[in-house]
């Protein structure tokens, strides 16, 4: 390649690599948007019902590889921290339940599954990646957002959950 081109090309390539860094988490203190969704059992569940506990809201779909991969880690986390006031809801964003039910049949979990088939709650939470996990504190404020999942991310979740569990209601 002509020498005239190699420096700007290298610069552009470096800029491109630097700017491709993914967003991991952000800290915010606005109240978490309210919602009422139907659970797997057919009962309506509201975010307001869970006030006073630390809540993890996970948006997932059965067609999303990282979402499926995350579930066993989330289940382990849920079993461990539930006695300390930790609650978890996994909101499924698919338009029909069949595929989600099939996945849950093969990979059972102990936390609640809610369905958001018309994506209203996904929209109000501004979900911009699959999966997205929100952490809400005991006072109902949206504290952390995690976009995307790679094995090992649960370490950050656990750290934040433990910190929020220590806070007063």
């Amino acid at each position, binding site marked *: 390649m002509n020498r005239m*081109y190699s420096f700007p090309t290298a610069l552009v390539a470096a800029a491109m690599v630097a700017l491709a860094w993914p967003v991991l988490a952000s800290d915010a203190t606005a109240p978490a948007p309210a919602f009422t969704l139907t659970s797997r059992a057919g009962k309506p569940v509201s975010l307001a019902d869970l006030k006073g506990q630390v809540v993890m809201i996970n*948006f997932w*779909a059965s067609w*999303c590889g*990282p979402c499926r991969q995350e579930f066993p880690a989330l289940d382990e986390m849920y079993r461990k921290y539930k006695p300390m006031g930790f609650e978890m809801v996994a909101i499924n964003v698919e338009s029909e339940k069949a595929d989600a039910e099939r996945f849950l049949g093969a990979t059972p979990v102990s936390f609640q599954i809610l369905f958001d088939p018309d994506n209203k709650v996904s929209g109000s939470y501004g979900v911009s990646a*699959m999966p997205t996990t929100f952490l809400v504190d005991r006072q109902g404020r949206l504290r952390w957002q995690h976009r995307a999942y790679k094995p090992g991310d649960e370490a950050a979740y656990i750290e934040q959950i433990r910190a929020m569990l220590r806070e007063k209601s």
Partner: protein
Amino acid sequence: MRPARLVLAALALLATGGCSRVEPWVKPYERENLADPIMSWDRDPISSSYMLHVYESREGARGAAGAAGGGCGCN
């Protein structure tokens, strides 16, 4: 020099991707159909690359066969 300019232009396009915050009109949670394996450009690379070889060794035209992208858009 044309290939070099082409590469430069494409690299510039790649660089813009990192800093833009264009609101996607298909949200990440609306990609159910696109994530379906039947919507993949190339479900079985071992078979498609073989067919490409069958054609390229018997026809004059070559190239521009591949496409990446689509899918679930996760992570």
